[in-house]
């Protein structure tokens, strides 16, 4: 199997093309690049290391079986992977609830020395999220990590639907502004 650095200069799209051409080394490189942040997101949604690990294995198995990308868009690969793992984790969470199972394995937080390529990006986005007003952050978290719909968010957060709408829009717009500024500072 090729060493990970063999793909250091290969961009995400090319990696996916190689996966589609049944290149197992390319799948390994894609895993090395994104398994850590995807696992972290799975842990955040599911709150269980066991379920998160299974989600990650299922995800990469699916990518291998389907030969790469199937959403028909040209957006960034990382955004596609996040969307994919989020969707699968929310479905898994729903199943767990339907089956009346309890998730007992907890995901301990850690400052992963294992974070690699995306360390800088993670820090920036975490900081940007932390600066959002609490109401906006809460709406974003309930929608993104819990998969709640607007009326459910209004119910859980105990606020009018119109306020939820406004906070979702303002929160994302503010994040967009902050991130654009930060990428500029970091020369990205």
């Amino acid at each position, binding site marked *: 199997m090729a060493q990970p650095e063999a793909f250091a200069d290969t961009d995400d799209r090319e990696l996916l093309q190689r996966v589609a051409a049944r290149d197992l080394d390319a799948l390994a490189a894609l895993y090395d690049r994104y398994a850590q942040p995807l696992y972290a997101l799975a842990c955040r949604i599911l709150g269980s290391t066991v379920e998160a690990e299974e989600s990650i294995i299922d995800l990469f198995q699916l990518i291998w079986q389907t030969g790469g990308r199937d959403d028909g868009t040209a*957006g960034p690969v990382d955004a596609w992977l996040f969307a994919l793992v989020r969707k699968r984790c929310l479905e898994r969470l729903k199943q767990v609830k339907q089956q009346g199972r309890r998730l007992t394995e907890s995901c301990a937080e850690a400052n992963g020395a294992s974070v690699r390529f995306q360390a800088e990006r993670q820090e920036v986005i*975490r900081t940007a999220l932390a600066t959002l007003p609490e109401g906006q952050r809460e709406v974003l978290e309930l929608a993104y990590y819990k998969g709640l*719909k*607007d009326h459910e968010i209004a119910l859980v957060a105990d606020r009018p639907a119109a306020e939820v709408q406004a906070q979702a829009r303002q929160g994302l717009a503010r994040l967009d502004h902050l991130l654009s500024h930060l990428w500029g500072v970091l020369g990205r």
Partner: protein
Amino acid sequence: MMTCPEVRDLAGLYALEALAEAQRRDLETHLDACPTCWEELASLRRVVGVVGYGVPQPVLPPELKARLFRRLEGEPVGAERPSRPFAVDPSILGLGGPDADPWRRVALGLGAVVVLACAWGGYQTWQAARYGAERDERAVAQKQVEERLVRSTAVIRELREERERLALLKAKDVQIMTLSGQRALPGATARLAWSQAEQSWLLTADHLPPAVGARTYQLWAATDKSKVSLGVFQSNPDGRAVLKAFLPEIDGKPMAALVTLEPAGGSAQPSGDIVLMGLWQGDGGR
């Protein structure tokens, strides 16, 4: 069909996939015909695409990759392995000759089965050892690469942080305040710099011993209306602390900056000893 203002109101929820099915369809019908709304939504969806990076990072179990690839080994991956180690001509064992004694054929047949079973077992063991050794070598090599990447990432991060600090200190609107040690820690000193243009602040503190017990330092901006937490931090064993973060929206006229000792995780309002304090000088004393 929805109007543009209606779509704008729902844009955030749509980007977060938090709209009910019927509303989502209505909105998409509008998007198909309205490039302006489409553009606006694209930027929100781009942001949602990276929100996943913002979560704490539990360490990825190192053995997870091996588990994935063991599972994939059951899939067709292109490279064919031999279906059997070697082929045996039955006549070599005297099984196929017309004059062969039936008992001899049975005995030889059984013998052949035993030999083949042993050979197959040996082959499997050899293959397992070979694949095991290759896997170990790969794991060692990968670990070395990951360690190098971690070291490189740390250096790059330090350089970027230094560049950010310099950018803030060179900003045209930078304001700098000196904070003095208070009764709890009279020898401590700090400087707080902030810039609206850079939307960030930077604190450098010296002679600040690491907080003991389950406590932490917390920096506050005090205005005539409230005290706003700027963040919690720890100092190094050498008594130095350097941290930088976003400038929050502060309501009211700035009066002072404080550092207090608070329970781990910080407090909603200052509750512990004030260890450093600086007063707002109007022009920031630059």
